[in-house]
Structure formats: C-alpha cells, structure tokens
C-alpha cells in the first residue's frame, strides 16, 4: 500500500468515526414529546401538559406527564425541562390537544408557532378535547393504554372508518389559509373509564364555533367526497311501531359540484352525488330481493341523505362555518373581482344548498 492511499484511508476512517461525536442524540437521554395539551386559564395564560412515553425497564411508569403555565409552548418546554432528567425534543410529536375554551378563543398563534418549528412534524394531529384537555392526559384509563397513546390509536382507527377525522397541523393550516373553506378538527370526550371520539369541531377561521354530532361524521365525509368505507346507519323512519333502520357498508361515492347564480347574485349549490354500497342490516317492510322494492329503498335512502345533508349544511350556515369548502366552488365559478367584492363570510348563510343523490345497492347479504 502506498503512503498516499494509506493516508487517505486513515483520513476517511477518522472522518467517519469522529463525525459521530458532533451533535449527539442518545435515545436514552431524550424525552420524546408524544402528546401536548393546551388549556386556557382564567387569567388568560395557557396551561401546557405534555406526555413522554418511557421505555425504561427500571421504572414502573410508562409515561411521564409534565405541566407548566406560560404564554407559549416553547417557553413552557423550558419550564417543563426543569422538571425532568430528559432532554425534551418535539420531533415525534403525534397529537396536539386543545381545550374547548382555548379553541373558542382561536388557535392560530399556537399553531403558527408549531408550524414555524421545522422539527415539529406537519403530520402532528390536531384534536379538540371536550372540556379540559390537560385533565385527560393526566388520567389513567385502566383498561387502555396511557392517554397519549390511547388518543393516538383511537383517532387513527376511527379516521380509517370515517367515524372521525384525521386533521393534521398541515391540513388545518391549509384550510385556515384557503379563503374558500374553514378548518375542522375531531373532538374527543372523557367518559370516565374510556375516551370517545365525539364528532367534529367546526371552526370559523381558527375559532371553534360549533360542532357536528358523531352520527354526522360519515355524512360529512360523504359530502366532502373523501368517503371510502365504513358503516353508515340511518333511521329512515323513527316512528315507534315502524322503526326502519338500514346499515350500509363498503361504500363508494363520487361527487360533482355545480354552482349557479340567480338574478340577485346569490349562489345556488348543487351537489351531484352517487353512492354505492352493501346493505348489511335492514329492519323494514321492504323485500330487498324484489327489484322494485330494492329500488324503493334506494330512493328512500337518497331522500333521507338529502334531507340530512340539507339539515347539516343549514346548521353550518347558521354558525357561518364553511367546513365543507363550498366557498372553493363558489370562488371558482366567479371572476376574481366578483369574488373579492363578495364578503363570503356574510354571503355563505344565504347560499341555497341542494343535492341530488343516486343510490345503488350493490348487494344485500347472503339471505334473500
């Protein structure tokens, strides 16, 4: 081996080995923030609660919970850093929980701070806690994982079935910035021994204004056109003697939106939807193996969904929260100057909404 190549190899080895000495990140010394809860205090400050999962065999606890009161999360982590022997890092943050009171006041300042930090993942989930968020994190749900992990798994599973929504820091910010849609976020509620996903929080810009009950989340997903699969149960008739329940599964939907303007300039929105699904349960008088009766049920489902959709949109219009993003379609149907002239927030409640639904029952199970 020549002298020159020896030196090169030596330098190379030195470079590879010593480069590990800079900027060390030793797992055992790091506290990975998993879930952070923000709550508004009566004095206007914010209470921060965060959970760190622990992989320490010697310790009984599987989670460390820290709290601090401050104005900003970054400042709070410094205070919380004084309470733990871990170095707090935010790269693995999975969930950000906001108490209702804070959400009503507006979230943007806090979210903007998280957005600014390149370490925080844009995929961190945004969730609204019904009541106080910090209390949920401090609780122990005996038969379930630790709260941080519990919420995370629960939301992921529910979102897959469209029983809830997966709203991330990124998607919330995007809808906040877009002038034709308002953000939403899933809500969770403490039931004592369990947690429960509890519908959707609807925002006006970054302020929580109203919510949708859990039974409406699938309808909401259907209207946004993102709905793929899940169980959708509808009471077609709730009269005591003739209760008619139908449960649809494995759904497939498409959506087209048409916008027209009447003489006064008020936008008319027509959602043209198709819905294909399997009936897994039906407690009514119709016999599904007879084509005519099945088509009658299809029509009944269509009418029911249409009425429900109109009710839901009317509710959103009442609170001036354009959570479906109707504004995006209205905007795209007008010229730029017309759109800018229109005050969408004020115009939105006046919009005439309707939908046209074509339901197809693909199959109805193994029994005729």
């Amino acid at each position, binding site marked *: 081996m020549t002298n020159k190549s020896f030196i090169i190899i030596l330098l190379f080895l030195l470079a590879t080995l010593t480069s590990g000495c800079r900027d060390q990140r030793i797992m055992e010394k790091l506290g990975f923030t998993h879930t952070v809860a923000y709550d508004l205090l009566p004095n206007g400050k914010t209470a921060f609660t965060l959970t760190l999962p622990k992989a320490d065999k010697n310790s009984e606890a599987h989670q460390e919970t820290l709290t601090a009161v401050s104005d900003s999360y970054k400042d709070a982590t410094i205070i919380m850093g004084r309470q733990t022997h871990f170095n707090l890092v935010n790269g693995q943050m999975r969930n950000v929980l906001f108490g209702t009171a804070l959400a009503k006041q507006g979230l943007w300042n806090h979210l903007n701070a998280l957005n600014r930090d390149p370490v925080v*993942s844009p995929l961190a989930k945004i969730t609204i806690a019904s009541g106080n968020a910090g209390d949920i994190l401090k609780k122990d749900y005996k038969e379930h994982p630790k709260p941080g992990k519990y919420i995370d798994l629960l939301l992921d599973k529910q979102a897959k079935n469209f029983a809830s929504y997966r709203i991330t820091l990124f998607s919330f910010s995007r809808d906040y*910035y877009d002038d034709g849609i308002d953000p939403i976020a899933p809500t969770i509620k403490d039931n004592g021994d369990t947690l429960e996903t509890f519908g959707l929080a609807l925002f006006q810009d970054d302020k929580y204004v109203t919510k949708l009950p859990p039974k409406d989340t699938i309808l909401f997903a259907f209207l946004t056109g*993102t709905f793929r699969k899940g169980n959708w149960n509808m009471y077609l008739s709730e009269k005591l003697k003739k209760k008619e329940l139908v449960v649809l599964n494995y759904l497939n939907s498409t959506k087209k939106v048409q916008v027209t303007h009447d003489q006064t300039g008020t936008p008319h929105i027509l959602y043209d939807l198709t819905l294909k699904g399997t009936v897994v349960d039906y407690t009514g008088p119709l016999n599904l193996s007879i084509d005519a009766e099945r088509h009658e049920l299809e029509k009944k489902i269509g009418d029911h969904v249409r009425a429900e959709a109109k009710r839901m949109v009317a509710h959103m219009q009442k609170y001036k929260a354009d959570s479906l*993003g109707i504004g995006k379609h209205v905007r795209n149907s007008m010229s*730029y100057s017309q759109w800018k002239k229109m005050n969408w927030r004020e115009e939105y409640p006046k919009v005439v909404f309707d939908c046209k639904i074509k339901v197809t029952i693909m199959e109805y199970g193994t029994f005729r």
Partner: protein
Amino acid sequence: MRENLSAFHVTILIFMIQFGVVLFNLSQIEAYYFGMNGWLILFVVFAIVTLNILLIGIVYRLGNGRSIFEIFEEALPSIIRIPLYIFLTSLWGLLGSLLGKQYVLIFQMIAFPTSSTMLIKLLIDLLGFYLVSKGIYTISKASSIFFWLVIWTAILFLFLMKEFEFVRLTPFIFREHKDYLEGFFYVYPAFLGFEFSLLLFPYVNKKSKLIKSTFLGNLLLTIVYLIISIFSFGFFGYHLLKELQFPMIELFACIQLPFIERMENIIYGFFLCTTIITLVFYFWSAKEALSRVFPKVKQNTLGIMIIAITYLISFCAQVLNDVETWLRYLGYLEIGVAVGLPLILIMILLLQRKRGGIIDK
C-alpha cells in the same frame, strides 16, 4: 482518440447543472411574485431560455465548434481578455461556493443544527474538488448516476395524491401578483446552467447534437418544475404556499409510510447529488477560464485555488438570508453572462467572417 460526450450524457448533465436547491422554494416564489396559478410563468421562462439556447446554437454554428476561449483569443487583446476571464472565474467560483453553502444551511434546518456550517461545507467542497479534478467526462458520468439517485423521489408524490385537489388551483391567473420583473429575476436563475453548453464545445462532436441535447435537458427540467409547481399549488393552496419557506421540504414531510415518516430528513440528503453536480460544474468552468489566464499552472492547483479562495469568501455570508441575497445578485450577473456571452461571441464571429478570417466549410 479523444472521447466525446454522448447526446444522452449532455442532456442529463445540463439537466443536473440546472436542477438544484432552488427547487425547494421555487413554487413559493411563483406564488409570491406571480400570484394565483403562478406556475404558468414557467412556460414564459422556458420560451426565453429556449431563445437563449438558440443564441448559443448560433455561436456553435458560426464558430464551427471551436472553443469559446479560442474565439476570444483570436479576437481580443489580452488586456480585455484577462479581466474577462478573471471576472468569469470569480463569478462561477463564488456561485459554486455559495450554492454549496445554501445547501448546507438548509440542511442544518432539519439536521445537525449545532454543527459548524463551514465544516460540513468543507466536506462538500472536498467532494466537489475530487470530481472537478477528474475532468468533464467523469463529471458527466457521475451526473448520470446522480440523476437516477434523485429522480426516483418523484414516485413519492404518488403517496400525496389524495391530498391534491384541482379546486384549490382556482381559475384565476396571476391575481394578487407582485412585481413581475423582480419575480422573473427570481425564477430565471432556477433555469441557469444551460449556458455552460458554451464551454462544452471542445468536448462534443456532431453526434452529441449539443444544442438539441441542451434543449432537451432544459425541457426535462421545465417538465419536472411544472409537475412540482402544479402539485404544490393543488396541495397547499395558493394562500398557504406563499407563506411557506421551503414547500418541497414540507411536501416530503407530509409523506407517511407504514415503516417510516419524516422522510424529508433522508430525501434532502439525496438532493446533495444534484447540488454537487451544479457546484462542481461551476467550479470546473471557473477553472477552465482561469487556466486560460495561467496556462502553465497545473489544472488541479487552479482547482484547489478557486475552491479555497471562494470557501474563504463564503465565510462572509453567515445566515441563509445573506447567502440568498448574494446568490440573487450573482444570479443577475450570471443572467447577464448567459445572454451577453453568446451575443459578444456572435458579434466577434460575424466580424471575423466579414474580414474573411474564417473560411466556411
């Protein structure tokens, strides 16, 4: 026998020189300066760059493929020539050095934030020097390999398709735009690099189809830019996009696979490949120009000199914003070179032709 660059290699090389860190904020620039659907400006820039490449084609045709340095040496006295070469050397050397520094500074936003910037830059410059010392053929072959190392990342966008909405693009064109001209001077540098086909004259033959290959390289670049820009507009929406510092990093950060997330940390590393080709080519060109001033000095010594001196100068630009400001001004000069150099050469060649200095084949 002298080796010649193949047409494919020239295409990839030109693409890789043009393609660089600017990709990471290109769509933000489009949104900020050109407003809604700002990506449409790429068509305009593409057309202008094509004209610029045609200018280079005229030089190639008129000069019968002679090196531009030879053309200068026949026509200009050394009192004009040498300052011109020194100017080109400093411009290209500094651009190469600062592009490297920009890459490192962005890299440090996501990894190794407390390490010394200049130490990491030193490593990149060393890599660059090794490649420069191997000459143009090795650089072009390396760039073909690096091309594949980078281009596969495009597949990752498929994972984000479900978040893309055409509705978000809006039907409005260039609404809420800022100063067009200023924006143009931000977007045009993203295409710079094609002008280096001027320096490739001695290394190609007829089969290389230099001008066609340069055009194809630029076309490929435009297509890649278009896909990324349209995607960014439909993914983030115009209003969020103009607020983002580096939309591309954000895009990669939004990819989540069952076994991995926070992909941006890895992916950004792959973009070293394109950055290094860009900066190596700037260094190589600087060295080519300088070797005409000092023909007797060994090529590698010149390479080390250029990289070392520009390394020292790059100490002055400490933070990302400084580096970007420097790059902007140097970019203006480089635009001047990209347009001016071919024009001067065409004038010289036409004058020579008038005097009958060159006999047409």
